[in-house]
Every structure is written in structure tokens, then in C-alpha cells.
């Protein structure tokens, strides 16, 4: 008996020794600290979890865009083929050629490149296209909005005038009022103006430009807040120094304030441009059928391809217009994608600069 007990005792102490040896313990501690960390939040396991969650959620973000790109290169056979999930078997650009016509864009054809004249004509046709309309219209609105927001922001940041607090709260409240509430009288006002003076206003770009020029454009509250908070950060000593040297108020505003805040101005311009580009509600009320903009042409797709439903091989309904729609969406988004690719840092900075998160 004794032999057996001794054997076990020995074995146990051996195992105990091995487990408690310095080397093993160090390895144990090392792995534990690496995996779990001192505080759970600095271990590998925790970071792995964070990565998994973030990447799987970003998959949901990208999924619609990936779907869009994949669909827009498919033809009808590929769309109906259940074996094809992402990569089309015979990719085509036919969708885009059809879609260009509907979106009122110049069609793409090899004949345009045969002679110099044809090419010139083709280039000229871009001038009437919806993409050109959208671009210049959004740019003009963005410039108006930026100018007025800068002036208003400067007033709020630098001057202590009567009822300042009141107007500031009014500015913040105007963000909250639903836009459709304001649109009825605005439309009535402009159409009444048209009736009285006989100048054509409705169906042109003028109403929106006027509204933007008076600081009531889309989300202009946010733009004014961005400017106000940035101007507050510029030390007032600079203004005073310039004033002592004999600069007028406008000179101070232009030579010191504006020149110092070029980066903020680009941010505001970018935001305003993108918001105006994406805006369809106000534009549809004022412009009507007067001028085609790109996102509104995209909205027309529902009436054109909405009813084109067929039956797939499994008996489930398949929308035949899907490929066209996705191609059209792709084209509409494309200019914004390019802007975002170049200026994504500016966008995020812009929101950080608003300072509405409290200083």
C-alpha cells in the first residue's frame, strides 16, 4: 500500500512542482495578460470582440452599395440565375447606356469620338444634362449659404447687440420646425409675386437662391453654428490690432477673419453642396418640371420601371427593373463618392468643429 501511496504522493508533488515552476508560471501569466489583460479592456480577446462587432456592422453598411455595384453590371439572365450571388457571369454596361437616357445625361457612343465636331457637340450636350444642372445649382446655393452663414456667425461670435440671446434661440428653433410647414406659405408667396409682377419665378431656380441668400436654406442652422464656434476661437486681439492700424470693420472681416478660416469655409461649402445636391423635396416644389436635377430624375424611376415585375425560376417575384435602378443609383451617387473620396477627412472634421457637443 505504502508504495502506491508514495507513488501518488511523489507524482502529485512532481506535477505541483512543474506547474509552479518559475518558467511555467511566467508563461501562464504572460498569456493571461495578453489574452485578458489587466483590466479586461486591454487584452487580445476584448480587442478581437471589438473588431468582430465593428467589422460585421460595417458589412451591413457596405452591403447595399456592394449590391448596387453588383446588380448594375448584371444582365437579365444573371439577375434571374439563382447560382449567381455577387459576380455576374457576363458583365455588361447596357444598363448604364439605357439609364443615361432616362437620367437625361448625354449618351455614350463611339460615334462621338470619330470626328472633332461630333466630339464638340457631345461635350456641349453635357451643358443641358441633369448632372450639370445639379452641379451648378448646388454650387450656387452652397456659395450663398456659406456667405450668409459666415456673416451671421460673425455677428453672433463678435458683437454684443440687443436681443442676441433671443435671436440665437430663434436660430436654433428654426432647425426644429418641420420644413413642409414652411413650404406652403413660401410657395404661395412666390406664386403670388409671380401673379402680381408677371415675372416668372415658379419653375425657375430663383426662389431657392433667394431663400438661401437670406440664410434660410437647408440645415443652415448647423452651418451658422459651425462658423460661430470657429470665429469665437480666433482671438479678438487680432481684430483690435487691425482696427488700431486703421482697418474698417469690413476690412477686418475680410482680411483677418475670412482669410484665417479658409478650412472652415471649405468644410461648410462641402456640407452645403452635398445637402443641396441630395435635397429633392423643396426642389420639386419650386422647380416642378422646370429643370431636371439628377436625384429627381432618379426618383422618376419608380414610375418608369416600378411595374416591370416578373416571376423568377423559383416562382418568387423578381423585379426586372432592378438592374436599371441600381445602375441609375450608381450614376447618381458617383459624383458624391468622388467628393467623399477626396474630402472625407474634412467632413468628419466639420462635424467635430460644430462644438455643439459642449465646450
Amino acid at each position: 500500500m505504502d508504495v502506491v501511496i508514495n507513488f501518488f504522493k511523489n507524482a502529485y508533488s512532481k506535477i505541483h512542482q512543474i506547474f509552479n515552476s518559475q518558467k511555467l508560471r511566467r508563461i501562464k501569466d504572460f498569456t493571461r495578460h495578453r489574452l485578458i489583460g489587466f483590466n479586461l479592456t486591454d487584452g487580445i480577446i476584448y480587442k478581437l470582440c471589438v473588431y468582430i462587432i465593428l467589422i460585421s456592422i460595417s458589412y451591413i453598411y457596405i452591403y447595399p452599395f456592394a449590391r448596387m455595384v453588383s446588380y448594375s453590371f448584371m444582365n437579365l439572365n444573371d439577375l434571374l440565375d439563382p447560382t449567381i450571388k455577387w459576380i455576374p457571369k457576363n458583365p455588361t454596361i447596357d444598363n448604364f447606356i439605357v439609364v443615361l437616357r432616362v437620367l437625361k445625361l448625354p449618351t455614350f457612343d463611339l460615334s462621338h469620338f470619330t470626328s472633332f465636331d461630333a466630339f464638340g457637340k457631345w461635350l456641349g450636350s453635357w451643358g443641358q444634362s441633369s448632372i450639370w444642372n445639379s452641379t451648378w445649382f448646388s454650387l450656387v446655393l452652397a456659395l450663398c449659404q456659406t456667405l450668409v452663414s459666415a456673416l451671421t456667425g460673425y455677428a453672433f461670435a463678435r458683437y454684443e447687440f440687443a436681443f442676441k440671446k433671443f435671436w440665437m434661440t430663434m436660430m436654433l428653433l428654426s432647425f426644429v420646425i418641420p420644413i413642409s410647414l414652411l413650404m406652403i406659405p413660401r410657395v404661395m408667396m412666390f406664386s403670388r409675386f409671380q401673379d402680381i409682377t408677371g415675372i416668372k419665378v415658379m419653375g425657375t431656380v430663383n426662389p431657392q437662391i433667394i431663400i438661401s441668400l437670406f440664410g434660410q436654406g437647408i440645415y443652415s442652422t448647423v452651418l451658422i453654428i459651425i462658423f460661430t464656434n470657429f470665429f469665437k476661437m480666433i482671438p479678438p486681439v487680432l481684430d483690435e490690432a487691425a482696427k488700431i492700424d486703421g482697418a474698417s470693420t469690413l476690412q477686418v472681416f475680410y482680411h483677418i477673419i475670412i482669410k484665417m478660416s479658409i478650412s472652415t469655409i471649405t468644410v461648410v461649402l462641402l456640407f452645403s453642396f452635398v445637402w443641396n445636391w441630395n435635397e429633392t423635396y423643396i426642389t420639386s416644389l419650386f422647380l416642378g418640371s422646370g429643370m431636371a436635377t439628377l436625384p429627381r430624375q432618379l426618383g422618376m424611376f419608380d414610375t418608369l420601371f416600378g411595374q416591370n415585375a416578373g416571376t423568377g425560376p423559383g416562382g418568387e417575384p423578381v423585379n426586372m427593373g432592378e438592374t436599371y435602378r441600381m445602375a441609375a443609383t450608381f450614376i447618381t451617387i458617383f459624383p458624391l463618392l468622388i467628393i467623399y473620396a477626396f474630402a472625407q477627412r474634412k467632413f468628419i472634421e466639420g462635424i467635430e468643429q460644430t462644438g455643439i457637443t459642449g465646450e
Partner: protein
Amino acid sequence: MAKVQLNRATKRKHNIIGYLFLAPWLIGFLVFTAFPFFYTIYISFHSVTVTGLGIEYKFVDLINYINALFRDTYAWGTVTFPQTILELIMNLIIFVPTVTIISLILALLLNQNIKGRGILRTIYFLPVVILSGPVMSQFMNAGASNVEGVDHVFVYRIIWNYSPDLAEALDILFNNFSLVLWFTGIPIVLYINGLQKINRQLYEAAQIDGATSWQALWKITIPIIKPIALIVAIFTIVQIGTSPLNPTQWIIDTVMANRTTGQGKAAAYVWIYSLVMLGAIGLAVLLLRDRSKDEVFVDIRSKQDIRIARIIRRTKIKRLLNPKTFKQTFKELREEKKLKKQREKEALLGADKEEG
């Protein structure tokens, strides 16, 4: 900005130049925002006829509202306005809290010290730049915005058996899950910005006191981040109002399309919708407002003082309301005011003397 003592001349200058800079916005605000706001209230109680010669108003009481709420139907009698309003409220109840919470969670995760943070942030912000109404509805039509197969999940079945309403809410949520995520672009940036402003030393102190990171999250991060949650909630409500998630919009548009006689009616529709939206914003403010300002006085004595002052105020009001004691109380109050003013004057003089 600290309040600066200005003399009279500079005050006048500030007034004039300040208002000159403000002028374009101010005119725009009065003409295109303040006036329309009150004008829609006015015309919602009238039957409005717009002709080439002028606008005729006829007072019709509440008929526009009654029509909107009880009589009119759309889409060949299948849809009424209250139905869409209920749908809107449902959407608000489902989406606003989820967006506020999910974007907070994502911001907390993105605020960790991990590699590739910039790329992930770029992806999360992408929808803000790209999505417009038509693009969004194209995606929704293509079914690219839903997480498929929720109704096959076992837990969902259990919930459905337990309460079909909750299951329906979950259904709406998961069918538009991408939509929720697309709304989180700006909120995430706002949250991250707020998170980075929190003093690191707070966390260190908590750690030394033996708090886990979970406790630190609830006791430090969330109370500090709460005002931002309010901004996020308001922003989300406004965004939902201008997105395809707002089912009332197309009815309002169809009513508004009648440019000659429909405007009074449209105003009533829009006001009902606006009241819902403003109510939602008010609710968000009530739930998420910064209460810490009310609780500055924490020690018992100051609390007692506040209570005593409140009781005195109440008794005074009671005595004022009673016609028998009204005169005397009024006199007392006036004397008190005089005394207060005198004391303030003395204090000011004293301060001047000290400075001199």
C-alpha cells in the same frame, strides 16, 4: 464668452454693426420662417382660394382639422391620415431610441485604441454624404436595406407568441436595420467628439478606487455624454421627418398639389404632423435634459433652505389670492423689493469703495 462691461458708445456701435451683419439672416428669418410659421396657423382655420386676382379667406372653424382627422381618405379609401400619423409615431418610437443607443455603442467601440479606426469611421460616415430621399427609397425597394430571415429565428417566434405588437416592432426594426445604421453617421462623430473631451484622469481615479470599466461606463461616461444624446435624438427626429420613413409626407404632398383651393387644408394637415414632430422633440428634451444643473446644492442645509423658500413663496401667493389679506401682502412685498434694491445699491457702493 465672458460678459464684458461696455460703455455706451461701444454698446451702440456693437448694436449697429452687429445688426448689419445679422441683417440678411434676420430678414430671411422673419420673411421665410417666422411669418410662414404663424401664417399656416392662420390659414389652417380658413378655406383659402388662390386666384390670379388675390387670395380669399373664409373662416371655417375647425373643419380643416376635422376633415383631416376623420373624413378624408387616400389611395382609393384604403389609407387615412391618422393611420399614417400612427405609423410615423411608431417609427419615431422605434427608431429614435435605437439610433441614439446604437450610435453610442458604436462610438464607444470606435473610441477604443484599435488599428484601422480611421477606415472604419470613413465607412460609417459614408451614408451621410451619399444618401438622399430617392437613393434611399431605391435601396429600400431593392430590398438591400433589410436583414433577412428574422421571422425564422426561434426567439422571434417566442416573442410573437408572447406579444404580437412587440414582434411587429422588432419586424419593422430588422426590416430597416440598414436604415437605422445609415442614420448613425453624424451621431457617431458627435459622440466620439464628446467622448474624447472627457478627462482621462477621471477614469484613472475610478480605477484606483477599484471600479471596473463597466462601472466607469455607467458612472462616468454616460452622465457626461447625456447632453450629446439629446442633440443626437433631436437630430434623428429631424432626419426621420425628411426621409422615406415619414409616411405622412406623400399625403401632405397630394393635398398641397391643389394650388388653388387646397392650401388651407394642407396647412391643417401639416400642423397635425408638425405637432407630432414637435411633441417628439419635447419628449426627447424632457427625457434627456441635463438634470445635474438642478442638483447643484447637495448638502442637507442648502436643500432645507430651498424648501423653506418654496414654502414662503407658496404662502405669499395664497395670501395674495385671498382678497382679505391681499392689500397688506402687496405692501409687504413692495417694501421687501425696496429693501432688496437698497441692499444691492449698498453692496455696489461698497464694492466701488473697495476698488477705490
